[in-house]
């Protein structure tokens, strides 16, 4: 199995790295996304992630397959959280392994950029004085 896609409550960078490491890959790139403690200067208390999980898994799978078919990735893990998260918590992890580093870097960039555009997951930010679904309005 060369692709691991998952959406769950807790994820770690280490489990993604462990999955992709393989002797025929000399380059492993890792992207870790975490909860920022402020948005536009306003302190963020917590985040809530809602997922349309069955479709999100399909969209993540498309991303993974693109990195393998087009970018030349051997193994990739894309993990995302759901539920409530606090500042500093890991919310997304992408680990990509390739024979050489260029493809690994490119795959991480492609995967996180595409995830943010296409994967049906929504983030609500909770501030001291209210809450807002991120990027919902123009």
């Amino acid at each position, binding site marked *: 199995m060369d692709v691991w896609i998952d959406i769950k409550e807790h994820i770690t960078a280490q489990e993604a790295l462990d999955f992709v490491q393989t002797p025929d890959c000399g380059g492993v790139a890792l992207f870790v996304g975490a909860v920022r403690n402020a948005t536009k200067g306003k302190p963020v208390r917590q985040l809530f992630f809602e997922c*349309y999980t069955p*479709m*999100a898994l399909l969209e993540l799978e498309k991303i993974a397959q693109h990195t393998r078919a087009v970018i030349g990735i051997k193994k990739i893990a894309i993990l995302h959280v759901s539920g409530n998260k606090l500042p500093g918590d890991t919310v997304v992890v992408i680990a990509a392994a390739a024979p050489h580093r260029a493809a690994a870097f490119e795959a991480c960039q492609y995967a996180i950029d595409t995830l943010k555009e296409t994967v049906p997951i929504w983030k609500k930010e909770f501030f001291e004085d209210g809450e807002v679904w991120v990027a919902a309005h123009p």
Partner: protein
Amino acid sequence: MHTAGNAGYSALPAIEATGMKILLFGIAKDIAGAPFIQVDAPLARVAALREHLYTQYPRLRELRSVMIAVNKVYATDDAALQPGDEIAVIPPVSGG
């Protein structure tokens, strides 16, 4: 094109299976006030569903985008809808 006018169908006895269950997420769920809604009007295409939703929930128009997914795949406005399809309203995504 002859589309199903409500008047034409209303004379017929109980038509089943025109109802559609529509899943809502994120801010769309908040606007509708429910995680899913039932639509009983026969809507043949995504465009008709979109208009129905905008009429029922005008605040959806204020969003940066509203995508419709049919059977877990993004659908264009001209895509056909069938009874039993899994339909979802996808407001602007913000994962990662």
